[in-house]
C-alpha cells in the first residue's frame, strides 16, 4: 500500500523532469536562435563572434543533454530569471497569478462537483420524464455554448444589476488587503474585512460560473447515465429486496458506485478548465496564469512562458496523481 504511494509519487516526479526537458527543447531549441537575441541581434563584422560568445554564455555550445541537465538543475534551484513583459522576478509573477487561477478554479469546482452530482441524481430519478428532457437539452446547450460568449453575457448582466464583475478586487481594496495566503477570499476573512470579502466574492462569481459550466454538466450527464444503469445492478436490487430504504439505497448503494468515476471526470476536466480559465481571465480582466501566458507569448517572454508551462504541468501532474490516489481509496477493487 505505502509502496504504491511512493511509486505514484516517483512517477509524478519523473513526469515533471521529463516535462521540463520537453519544454526546454520546445522553447529554446526549436524556434529561431536565442543566442542571436541574447547577443542583441548583432550585425557587422564581429557579429559571428558575438553570437558565438552568446552561445557560450547560454550554454548552447554544449551537447543537448548537458544543456537540458543544466536547465533543469538551475530551474529546480529557483533561478527562473526576470520576466521581460512584467519587469519582475518570474517567481513573483507566476505565483501571484497562479494563486488567482487556483482560487478561481477551486471556487468553481467546490460548487460544480456537488451540484453536478445533485443535478445528475435528480435527472436519473426522473429519467424519461419532461424535467429530465428539459435538463438534458439545457446541459447539452450549456456545454456547447462558447465560453467567451457566455462570459461576455455575464459581464453585461452583472453591469445591468449594478455589480462590478471585472478585475479581481476593487483598486481601493488591493492596497488595503493584507496578503497572507494570496487567496483574497481567505485573506479578507482572516483580516477580517467583510467588505473586501464581499467585493472579492462578487467579482469571483461570474468567472467561476463560466468555468463551472463544463465540469458541472459533464458530471451531471455522467451521473444521470450511470445512476440509471445502477438501479438495475444486482446489488441494488438485492438491497431493495432486503427492505433497505430508498434514501439509503440511493446514497450508499447506487450513488456510491458513481463517485470514483466522478472524481476521475472532475480530475480530467480540471485540465480542460485550466485552459478555459485563460479565456475567462482575459474577458473579466483578472490576474491569472492564463492571462500571464498570453501576455508572455505576445512579448516573446521565453523564461516566463517556460515557468508558466512548468507550473501548469506541475498542477496537472499533481491533480492526476491525486485523482488516482483518491480513486484507489474509493474503490476497493482497484488493484495496486
Amino acid at each position, binding site marked *: 500500500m505505502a509502496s504504491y504511494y511512493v*511509486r505514484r509519487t*516517483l512517477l509524478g516526479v519523473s513526469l515533471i523532469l521529463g516535462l521540463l526537458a520537453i519544454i526546454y527543447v520546445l522553447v529554446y531549441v526549436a524556434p529561431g536562435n536565442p543566442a542571436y537575441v541574447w547577443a542583441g541581434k548583432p550585425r557587422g563584422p564581429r557579429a559571428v563572434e558575438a553570437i558565438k560568445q552568446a552561445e557560450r554564455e547560454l550554454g548552447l555550445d554544449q551537447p543537448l543533454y548537458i544543456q537540458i541537465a543544466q536547465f533543469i538543475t538551475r530551474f529546480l534551484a529557483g533561478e527562473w530569471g526576470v520576466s521581460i513583459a512584467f519587469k519582475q522576478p518570474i517567481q513573483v509573477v507566476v505565483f501571484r497569478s497562479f494563486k488567482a487561477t487556483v482560487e478561481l478554479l477551486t471556487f468553481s469546482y467546490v460548487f460544480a462537483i456537488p451540484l453536478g452530482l445533485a443535478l445528475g441524481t435528480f435527472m436519473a430519478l426522473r429519467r424519461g420524464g419532461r424535467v429530465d428532457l428539459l435538463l438534458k437539452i439545457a446541459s447539452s446547450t450549456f456545454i456547447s455554448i462558447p465560453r467567451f460568449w457566455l462570459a461576455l453575457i455575464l459581464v453585461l448582466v452583472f453591469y445591468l444589476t449594478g455589480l462590478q464583475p471585472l478585475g479581481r478586487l476593487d483598486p481601493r481594496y488591493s492596497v488595503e488587503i493584507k496578503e497572507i495566503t494570496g487567496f483574497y477570499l481567505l485573506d479578507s476573512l482572516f483580516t477580517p474585512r467583510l467588505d473586501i470579502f464581499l467585493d472579492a466574492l462578487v467579482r469571483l462569481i461570474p468567472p467561476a460560473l463560466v468555468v463551472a459550466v463544463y465540469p458541472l454538466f459533464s458530471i451531471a450527464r455522467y451521473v444521470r447515465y450511470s445512476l440509471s444503469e445502477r438501479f438495475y445492478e444486482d446489488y441494488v436490487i438485492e438491497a431493495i429486496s432486503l427492505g433497505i430504504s430508498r434514501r439509503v439505497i440511493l446514497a450508499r448503494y447506487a450513488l456510491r458506485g458513481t463517485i470514483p468515476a466522478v472524481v476521475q471526470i472532475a480530475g480530467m476536466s480540471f485540465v480542460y478548465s485550466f485552459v478555459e480559465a485563460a479565456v475567462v481571465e482575459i474577458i473579466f480582466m483578472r490576474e491569472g496564469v492564463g492571462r500571464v501566458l498570453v501576455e508572455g507569448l505576445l512579448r516573446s517572454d521565453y523564461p516566463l512562458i517556460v515557468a508558466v508551462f512548468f507550473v501548469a504541468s506541475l498542477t496537472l501532474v499533481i491533480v492526476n496523481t491525486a485523482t488516482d490516489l483518491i480513486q484507489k481509496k474509493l474503490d476497493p477493487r482497484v488493484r495496486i
Partner: protein
Amino acid sequence: MLEEALAKPVLRVCDIWVEYSLSSGLLSKKKKIYALRGVSFDVSGSEVFGIVGASGSGKSTLLKAIMGFVSPSSGSIEIDDVDILKVDRETRKNILRKMGYVSQNPLAAVNPRFKVGDIVAEPLKAAGLSRKEITKMLPTLIESVDLPLDVVDLLPHELSLGMLQRVVIARAIATKPRILLLDEPTSALDTVTQSHIVVLLKELKDLFGFASVLVSHDLKVVSHLADRLAILMAGLVLEEGTTYDVLRNPLHPYTRELVDSIKLKEVKEVFTIDPRTCPFYAHCYLRLEDRCRRIPPLIELGRRRKVRCWLYS
C-alpha cells in the same frame, strides 16, 4: 496395428508450468503465483479427456496454454508430435488450425452483428475455401448440430442460448479439427439445454471422431462425456484415470467429495489453499499431520491410474 494408431496421442501435454508474477512494490521482490504446477496428460485418437476443477484450479489456464494465449515457463505441448512451444509463428498458426474451441458463454463468442450463416462460415473462409464450397457445406454443418436450416439468416440475439451454443459448436467443427477444446460448454445453460448439448457432443464425437479436451467444474457433465479424466486443484493434478474407475473407486479424498457432490451431498467448500502443502490439506478428513504438509508426488497405480496422495505411497 489399428490399436496402435488409435493409442498414438494427438495431444501430449508434458510437465507444464505456468506462472504469473505479481509485482507488489518497486523494490520488493516479485511474487510468483503458479497457475499450473507440472501438469501432464495425453489425449489420443477419438478420446475425450476431461479436466475437473473448481474455479481457480488452473483449468482454464491449461486450455489457454494449449491454444497459445498463455506461454508456459517450462514443459512441452505436442500436437501430432510437434512441440507448439518450439516452432515458429507460421507453423504454429497452421497447427492451431487443427483445433476447434467452444467457450462457456456463446453470447460472448460470436459477433452480434453477424448472421448465423456467416458465423459458421468464418473458419471456412479463413481456411481459404471458396464461397461456392462454403454454401455447399453450410447445410450439412447446421444439420449436424440439430438446428433448423432457416437459422442461417438469423442474428445471434434472435436465438436462445442453447441454440447459440450449437452454432458455436458448428463453427468449431466446421474445419474438421483434430482436437476440440471445450471450456465449460454447458455451464451457462439450464439443465434441459445442458442435457441437449451433452447428447449432441456425444453424437458429434462418434460422427467426426475428433479428440477432445473437456474442462468443467461439474463432474456430472464430465463423467457423461469423458473417457478419461483428471482432477485439478491449485494447479496440481490430484487424480487421473478412466472415468469408470474414478467414479466407481475414487482414490483421493477430494475426488470422493466431488463424486458425492453429484448426488448433492453435503460437502465443504475448499477456500484456503496453502501453495506449500497438499492443496486439500486444510479440508482433508484423512490427513496425517506432519506427512501431509508436504506436497505428495503423483503416484502411479497401474496403467493410466494416478493419484497425488500420501495414503497411497
